[in-house]
C-alpha cells in the first residue's frame, strides 16, 4: 500500500507479496523531526494518516529517550524529564518489543534516527541498523545533489535498502 497524501516522501517501489520478508516498515528522521524516509513493506493496519503517524513516531521516541535517560540506574546525575538531550547524551534505548512487533532504534551523533519495525521474534538489529546508516552515508550524504534535511529520493539508496532489509532474517 502506498501513501500519496500530498507529502513529499518518496513512495516506496511496488512490493511483491511479503514472502521471506520480516520487516514491516522503516523510518529515518533527522534531528529536527523531519521524516527523511518512510518505507513500508508489510503494514496491514494504518491507524493514522502519514503526517500524524510520523509525528507520533518521532514524539514516542523522543519521550522514550527522555524516560530511559531518567530511569538509568547507573548514572547518578540525570537531567530533568522532558529536557531535550543531545544525541548520545544519557542512556538511550535500542529496541522495544510488543506482542505484535519489535521496534529497533539507532541514533547517530549527527541526530539521524533510524527505526526499523519488524516481527516480534527478530533478534538484535543494532549491527543491521549500523549497516543501513552506512548505506545512507554512501548513497545519500555523498550525493552532491542531496540537500540535508530534505526527504530522500535516491533510487539507488532505495534499491540497496530493499535488498538488504529483505535479506535480514
Amino acid at each position: 500500500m502506498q501513501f500519496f497524501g500530498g507529502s513529499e516522501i518518496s513512495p516506496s517501489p511496488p512490493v511483491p507479496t511479503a514472502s521471506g520478508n520480516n520487516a514491516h516498515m522503516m523510518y529515518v528522521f533527522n534531528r529536527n523531526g523531519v521524516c527523511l524516509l518512510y518505507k513500508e513493506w508489510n503494514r496491514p493496519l494504518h491507524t493514522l494518516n502519514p503526517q500524524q503517524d510520523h509525528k507520533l513516531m518521532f514524539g514516542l521516541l523522543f519521550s522514550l529517550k527522555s524516560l530511559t535517560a531518567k530511569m538509568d540506574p547507573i548514572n547518578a546525575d540525570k537531567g530533568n524529564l522532558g529536557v531535550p538531550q543531545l544525541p548520545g547524551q544519557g542512556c538511550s534505548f535500542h529496541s522495544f518489543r510488543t506482542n505484535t512487533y519489535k521496534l529497533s532504534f539507532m541514533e547517530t551523533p549527527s541526530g539521524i534516527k533510524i527505526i526499523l519495525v519488524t516481527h516480534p521474534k527478530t533478534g538484535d538489529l543494532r549491527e543491521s541498523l549500523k549497516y543501513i546508516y552506512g548505506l545512507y552515508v554512501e548513497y545519500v550524504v555523498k550525493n552532491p545533489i542531496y540537500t540535508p534535511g530534505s526527504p530522500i529520493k535516491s533510487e539507488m539508496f532505495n534499491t540497496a535498502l530493499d535488498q538488504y532489509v529483505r535479506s535480514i532474517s
Partner: protein
Amino acid sequence: MAAIYSLYIINKSGGLIFYKDCGTKGRMDTNDSLRVASLWHSMHAISQQLSPVNGCSGIDLLQADTFDLHCFQSLPGTKFFVVCEPETPHMESLLRYIYELYTDYVLKNPFYEIEMPIRCELFDINLSQAVQSDRVALLGR
C-alpha cells in the same frame, strides 16, 4: 549482574500506586517516580497506535544500554514493570508472581481502596522475599 533495580505498579489511569527501589544510584524522588510512571503509561498506549498489525497490547520489553524494562499488563489494566540489568532471565515469571502477590495481599485486603497507593505490610514483606530469593537463585548472593 542480574539484579533488579526497581519495581513500579501503575493503576488503570496511569497513576503510580507502588514504587520499590532496590539499589539504583541516584534514587528518584517521589515526584520524579510519579512522572516516570505516567510517562510510561502514555508510551505504552501510544505504542499500540503505531502497530502495523491488529491486536497490539503495548510494550512488553524495552532494552536500553544499561538496563532492561519488563512490563506486564493485567486484564483489568494494572501495569507492573520492573527495571533490571540487561539480559536478566525469568523476569516475566517474576512479574506474574508479583501479580499473584498483589491479588493475594492487596486486592483481598478489605481495607485497601482500589486504585490507591499500596500500603500493605504483608505485600511488602512477601515482595522483598520474592526479589531476594530471585537474586539468590540467579546469583548466589
